[in-house]
């Protein structure tokens, strides 16, 4: 009987109380309901009361008690993990926590249980004054003095930032000038676009439109494809990341 009760087979409970308890525990065990949403203390007192008052089906009771035990395990597991975390983190001054009193899982368990079940939190927000004072004219004048300096600083930094941006852009332009990329990029894009349009299908792989063995050719094709995708003429995607084949699909209206 115990074996059967602990196995997963479903027991058809006739009593509506048994059925509802079974359902709730099942939600926690199989549907990942928060175990702390179950009030085990309340459950056990109700169940004991019923056991005293009427005849109960021992098979179903066994199954329900087993489920309750599993829920309790889930609740206390959380606390045990916390205790372990505490032990690991002792190095920043938490080492003085006494091993007796509050570290006992019983206390941690009942504290958590009580906080979760009680409608009132154990912390109360204090009522203090929220007084703010007025600003004086002297402070306003002082603020202006400081603001003037801040503005000068801000404008200087802003100017330097703009100059630096210009300098970097100029540098990049110079670097590109006369290179193969600058001269031929537009040409390359046009060439690849023509290739894609001529392809008999609207769907193709990158390697089908370029020379596989020539790395430079592959890079050129890939760059052009990226530009075309940016211009929304094609869609580019990959099924396996990062080493899978790259596919190209022409956009309908083209």
């Amino acid at each position, binding site marked *: 009987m115990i074996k059967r009760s602990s196995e997963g087979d479903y027991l058809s409970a006739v009593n509506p109380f048994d059925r509802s308890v079974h359902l709730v525990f099942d939600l926690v065990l199989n549907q990942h309901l928060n175990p702390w949403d179950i009030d085990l203390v309340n459950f056990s007192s109700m169940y004991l009361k019923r056991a005293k008052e009427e005849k109960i089906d021992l098979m179903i009771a066994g199954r329900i008690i087993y489920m309750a035990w599993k829920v309790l395990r889930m609740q206390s597991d959380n606390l045990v993990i916390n205790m372990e975390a505490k032990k690991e983190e002792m190095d920043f001054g938490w080492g003085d926590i006494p091993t007796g009193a509050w570290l006992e899982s019983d206390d941690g368990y009942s504290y958590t249980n009580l906080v979760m079940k009680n409608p009132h939190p154990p912390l109360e927000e204090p009522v203090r*004054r929220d*007084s*703010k004072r*007025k*600003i004086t004219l002297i402070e306003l004048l002082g603020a*202006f003095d400081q*603001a003037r300096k*801040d503005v000068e600083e801000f404008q200087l930094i802003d100017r330097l930032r703009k100059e630096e941006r210009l300098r970097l852009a100029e540098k990049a332009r110079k670097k590109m000038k006369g290179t193969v990329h600058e001269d031929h990029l537009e040409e390359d894009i046009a060439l690849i676009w023509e290739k894609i349009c001529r392809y008999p299908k609207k769907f193709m792989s990158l390697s089908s439109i370029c020379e596989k063995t020539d790395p430079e050719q592959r890079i050129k094709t890939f760059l052009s494809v990226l530009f075309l995708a940016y211009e929304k003429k094609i869609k580019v995607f990959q099924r396996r990341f990062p080493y899978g084949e790259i596919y190209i699909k022409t956009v309908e209206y083209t």
Partner: protein
Amino acid sequence: MGVREERLVESVLFSASKPVSIEEIKEATGLSKKKIDEALEGLIQTYNVERKKETSIEVIKAGNKYTMQVKKKFFDQSMMVAEPEIRSHLLKTLALIAFHQPIKQSNLRRMIGPRVYEHVDMLSAMKLICAKKHGSTEMLTTTKLFPEYFGIDSTKPEEIREFLAKKVIKSIEK
């Protein structure tokens, strides 16, 4: 006179941090106007007469409202710890607007950067400045509340600007 009522009204005055009307006290405590009047009278008597030398706090009537505040002679100490109503960054922006008014928001942005938008919103909400549409930007000036707040005896933007400019020059010369 009910002792409990007096304690309730005292707790409201203390926590309100600003002058409160009888109506507001009534709403917070549920006491009748008569009971509140009596409690306020009792508090004024206790704080300002009986404990005169035994406290630095007083209960006063300001217009139609009542407030609990630090006595003038302890004002300096409390200024040191009380938090200012306007935070320093915001105050700087307010000072720039007051000195350069009328000033375009786009120009102010060039002075202090993108935080201008948040600051203009906050200062407008505090009714210290006024932002009026001006083409694609806003034109910023101080409001009537501004001179009132700082005790400046003028309401015209140019006069306020001049007044502040003079003050600043004076403080630099010192």
